[in-house]
């Protein structure tokens, strides 16, 4: 899990404003976030809390109104739009809820598409796309057209496409949003495979069940980070030293009760290392 020390992404006081005057509204209102290499982050939160906006800004599809964004040690916030495009071509892979394959292109061409913009020759592109498809067990589907695939297969193609340019970070916006639960789990298994190979993944999801696959869960509320399991891990280490026993049972219980209190609508979130939610929340609010 997140044992590596290299931060891939550092966000400081990130703000994104929409509208002007009376309609002015902050979709992001001061987000601080550090993502280390090899993390699998799930971002949760109610609709309109700024999850997607955050993902778009991390993916350089959108610009922050204010704040700092450091990607791989470079402050990319001030880059020109063509340099943003270059960063997207080389360092970022997208997975979308509605897959977004190009209907005109067959599977292998879809997977090879990102390489077009990083100056790889046509043949090389197809070779790499073909390799990538094989790792997703889609080797026989190379020359299918997108409409000939099932939803799960389509999303696997999309994941292969996101990975083909060997990005430093993969951004997934509700990757299972359009899939049934069985395909959802297949996709999540694929994503955690990708994660195990050392890739960094940030995923936005509505489905609390999927957070089990993540190494770190962030909850957002009203444009701010509401809770972050990483902080909990840090907090927890001290008491863990004191009380090595009974950690697992206690914390699980605590989480369950806290979550149900906080959001009656959502079901219990099975988290890997949840604890002391309230302290975490307070800490977030203060920063």
């Amino acid at each position, binding site marked *: 899990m997140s044992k590596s020390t290299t931060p891939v992404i550092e966000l400081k006081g990130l703000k994104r404003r929409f509208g002007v005057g009376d309609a002015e509204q902050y979709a992001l209102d001061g987000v601080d976030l550090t993502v280390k290499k090899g993390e699998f982050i799930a971002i949760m939160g109610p609709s309109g809390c700024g999850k997607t906006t955050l993902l778009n800004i991390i993916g350089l599809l959108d610009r922050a109104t204010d704040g700092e964004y450091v990607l791989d040690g470079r402050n990319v916030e001030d880059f020109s*739009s*063509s340099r943003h495009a270059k960063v*997207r*071509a080389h360092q970022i892979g997208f997975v979308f*809820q509605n897959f977004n394959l*190009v209907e005109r292109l067959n599977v292998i061409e879809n997977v090879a598409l990102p390489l077009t913009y990083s100056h790889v020759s*046509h043949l090389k592109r197809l070779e790499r796309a073909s390799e990538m498809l094989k790792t997703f067990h889609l080797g026989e589907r190379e020359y299918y057209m997108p409409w000939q695939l099932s939803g799960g297969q389509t999303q696997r193609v999309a994941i292969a496409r996101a990975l083909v340019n060997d990005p430093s970070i993969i951004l997934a916006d509700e990757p299972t949003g359009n899939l049934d639960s069985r395909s959802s789990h297949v996709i999540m298994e694929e994503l955690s495979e990708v994660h195990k190979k050392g890739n960094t993944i940030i995923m936005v999801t509505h489905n609390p069940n999927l957070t089990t696959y993540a190494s770190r869960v962030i909850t957002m509320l009203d444009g701010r980070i509401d809770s972050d399991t990483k902080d909990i891990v840090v907090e927890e280490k001290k008491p863990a030293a004191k009380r090595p026993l009974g950690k697992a049972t206690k914390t699980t219980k605590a989480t369950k009760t806290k979550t149900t209190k906080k959001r009656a609508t959502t079901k219990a979130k099975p988290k890997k290392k949840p604890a002391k939610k309230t302290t975490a929340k307070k800490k977030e609010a203060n920063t």
Partner: protein
Amino acid sequence: MIGSLMVDHYRTAKQSLERARARTLLTISGVAIGVASITTILALSGGISSIVAQQVEEIGPNLAVVRPMDTATSLASLNNPVSQNAYTTSPLTETDLAAVRKLPSTEAAAPLMTISASIRAGDERPNKSTLVATSPDLASINQLKLRDGQFIDSVTLENTAVIGAQLSVDLFGTEQTIGRTFLIRGQTFTVIGVLKRLNQPINFNSIDYDYAAIIGFNSGKLFNDGVAQIQQINVLAKEGTNMNAYKKELTAELAARHDDQEDISVLVGEDISRSSNQFFDLISLAFSSIAGIALFVGGIGIMNIMLVGISERTREIGLRKAVGASNGTIMMQFIIESLIISVLGGLMGYILGYFMAFIISMFIPYDPLLSWQIAAVAAVLSIGVGMLFGLYPAWRAARKDPIESLRRYH
């Protein structure tokens, strides 16, 4: 690297154009019609000037032509094909002719005095005939060749004429007509020579010699109460004369004789081959503008279809941007797409244009001109149209917000 991206753009454009084949073909034909009409007009009007240019070239570099100054060409005269000055008296006079002949560099000079006259032999009245009064030098200047007999000269009697081959056939039913007589304005003339068939209805003299009756200058003057009426003077300069200097000399001489009024133009070299027919100039100008409109409409067709294609492919554009295409890349991709349409249209139009030009040339007395310039014009026009009308749609595509674009059709 840029090159390979271009190849990718081409591949992408080809794919998307092949997807909408009918639409693409219709748009291409829009451009093709525009380019075809321009090619036809250029080929035909180029054909005319190339004929004249060839004639001038055959005569050699020492030819100069003196004409009354052209009145300004205007579209207004299009509905009145007989230009207003058709019946006006030319400023060129017999003393001008003498002055031209006196210049040291002048080898020979021949006046052209066309006279409106009825020509008749028995009951035959050819409706197409021209009466020209000139001096014997015309034969050498214009290199007119005789089929039979001799050209008019200083010793032949008045009331003798040299006639064109076709006029001979029209009057007498044969080309062998030496010694036969015919009537000009009721006066009897004897045929002393028949010209070789030229087949040059268009030339720098504006006279079709196949249908001409050529008489001595003095005989011509008699039809005009003894007054010369010169439409044009053909001048041959001595071998090795600097024609530009000679032109200046002629112009200065004539201007001095005309109270410094610039009512006369002297043409040398290529200028002579410029179309001598104002009417034709106007026609080709009018047709060119119509062809230009056709091309413009074709361009609008491109823009239209590109805009449709771009709005259909909004999501694809958004995705391409998300996976690393910059605004410039997207713009280039769509410009290349519109260029493919317009260049294919240009190519088709060029071929179609020559096809039409050759069909039309069956009914007119000259052939269309084949030259690289016309190909270049067609190429430049089609590329220009593709660029111009592809620019705005491409710009629209490039400016699309990837987030908005990807959100569509959810």
